[in-house]
C-alpha cells in the first residue's frame, strides 16, 4: 500500500512538473527555451492602414447594395409562395399528420410540440442543450473573474459597488421579490412538469425558474442565493441535467424507441417528463449563469 501510495505521489509530482521519474524515462518532459508568446507583427503598417480605411469607406455602400438585392430576391420568393393559412399548403403533408395522430399512444404527450421536439426529434434537442451548455461555458471564459484578468482597481470598484448596494437597499424590489418569487418558482415548476399536456415544457419552464432565481438574486444580492446555490451546486446541476438527457435518450434509442412505458406509465408523460426535467435544469442554470456572469463575474 505504501509503495503504491509513493508511486501515486511520485506520479502526482510528475504531473505537476516537480519531479521526473528517472528509472522510467520513456519520454522526457523537459522545458525547452521559452518561445515568444506573440510573434512580432511584421506587416507593413502603412499599407495595412490604408487597406483598413479603404475597407471602411466602401463597406457601407457594398452592404447596402447586398441588402437591397437580398430583400428583393426574398420578396419575389415570398410572393410566389402558396397563400397563408390554407389547409392544402405543401407544408401540411403526411409528416405532421402522423405526429398529430400518433403522439398520444407513441410518446404519451398530448402536446404535439413537446412530443415532437423531445421524442421524435430528440437528438435535435440534445444538440441544442449542448449549445446552451457551451454558450454558458464560453461566457464563463470571457467574463469569469480570476487573478489573471482583474486589476486591483476592478476589485476595489466591485467592493465599493457592493457596499453601496448594501447601504441603499431597495425596499420595493425586496418586498416584491419576497412576495413574488415563491409564486414564480411554483409556476415554473408547473410549466416544467405539465409540459406534456399543456403549453410549456423544458425550455419555457426552465427559463421561468431561471427568472425567479434572477429576481431573488437582484433583490437580495448574490450572497443570499449562494447559501443554497453556490458554484459547486451550480456545476453539478448543470452537468447532471445534460447527462440525464444523454442517458435517458440513449436508453430510449437502445431499446428500440419503445418508450419507458414499463416503468413510467404513458399517462404521466412516459419519456417526455424526465427529459423535460433534464432540459429545464440545463436552461434554468444557463439563464442564471448568464445573469451571474454579467453582474459580478462570479457565481
Amino acid at each position, binding site marked *: 500500500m505504501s509503495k503504491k501510495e509513493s508511486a501515486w505521489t511520485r506520479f502526482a509530482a510528475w504531473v505537476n512538473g516537480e519531479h521526473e521519474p528517472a528509472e522510467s524515462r520513456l519520454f522526457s518532459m523537459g522545458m525547452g527555451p521559452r518561445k515568444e508568446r506573440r510573434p512580432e507583427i511584421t506587416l507593413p503598417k502603412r499599407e495595412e492602414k490604408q487597406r*483598413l480605411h479603404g475597407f471602411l469607406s466602401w463597406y457601407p455602400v457594398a452592404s447596402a447594395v447586398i441588402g437591397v438585392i437580398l430583400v428583393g430576391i426574398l420578396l419575389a420568393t415570398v410572393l410566389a409562395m402558396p397563400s*397563408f393559412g*390554407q389547409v392544402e399548403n405543401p407544408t401540411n403533408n403526411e409528416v405532421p*399528420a402522423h405526429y398529430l395522430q400518433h403522439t398520444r399512444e407513441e410518446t404519451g404527450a398530448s402536446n*404535439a410540440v413537446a412530443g415532437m421536439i423531445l421524442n421524435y426529434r430528440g437528438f435535435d434537442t440534445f444538440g441544442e442543450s449542448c449549445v*446552451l451548455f457551451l454558450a454558458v461555458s464560453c461566457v464563463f471564459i470571457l467574463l469569469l473573474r480570476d487573478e489573471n484578468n482583474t486589476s486591483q482597481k476592478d476589485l476595489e470598484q466591485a467592493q465599493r459597488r457592493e457596499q453601496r448596494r448594501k447601504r441603499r437597499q431597495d425596499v420595493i424590489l425586496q418586498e416584491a421579490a419576497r412576495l413574488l418569487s415563491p409564486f414564480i418558482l411554483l409556476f415554473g415548476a408547473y410549466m416544467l412538469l405539465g409540459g406534456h399536456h399543456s*403549453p410549456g415544457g423544458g425550455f419555457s419552464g426552465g427559463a421561468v425558474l431561471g427568472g425567479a432565481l434572477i429576481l431573488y438574486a437582484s433583490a437580495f444580492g448574490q450572497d443570499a442565493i449562494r447559501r443554497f446555490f453556490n458554484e459547486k451546486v451550480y456545476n453539478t446541476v448543470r452537468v447532471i441535467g445534460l447527462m440525464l438527457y444523454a442517458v435517458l435518450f440513449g436508453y430510449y434509442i437502445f431499446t428500440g424507441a419503445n418508450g419507458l412505458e414499463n416503468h413510467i406509465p404513458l399517462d404521466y408523460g412516459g419519456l417526455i417528463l424526465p427529459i423535460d426535467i433534464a432540459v429545464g435544469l440545463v436552461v434554468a442554470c444557463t439563464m442564471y449563469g448568464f445573469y451571474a456572469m454579467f453582474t459580478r463575474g462570479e457565481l
Partner: protein
Amino acid sequence: MDLIQRILENRFSVTAVILFGIGFANLMLQYNLVKKVVGFNIMDSAVFLLLASQGYIEGAMPPIVAEGAVEATAYINPIPSGLVLTGIVVSVSVSAFSLALIQRIYHKYGTVDLRELVMRTEKEED
C-alpha cells in the same frame, strides 16, 4: 391589383422579409456594437415569424390533441413550432455571447463605437 392581392394574402411572410431587411441593414450599417446585436436579434425574429406562419392553418386549434380519433387538419402544423421553440432559446444564448464579447472589448478599449475602436487600435499600434 394582383400584386396587392398577393401581398395581402402573404402578409406575414412579407412582414418577415421586411423585418429581415431592417435587421440586416442595422447589423451591417450601425457603428455601435450594441445596436448591431439588436439588429441581429430582429433578423432572428423575422426568420421565426416566416417559419411559424408557414405552419398556420386558418381556423385550426393549437396542437394539443384530444383523446380518440384525431382529424389532422383540425390542428396547426407542430413542426415549425418545434423548430422555432429551439431557435428562440439559441438566439438568446448567441446574443448573450456577443454581449459578453462587447463587455470585454469595452474593458480593453473603453468604447463600443466601431470607428473609435479602429482609431484606438491604430493608436495602440503606433
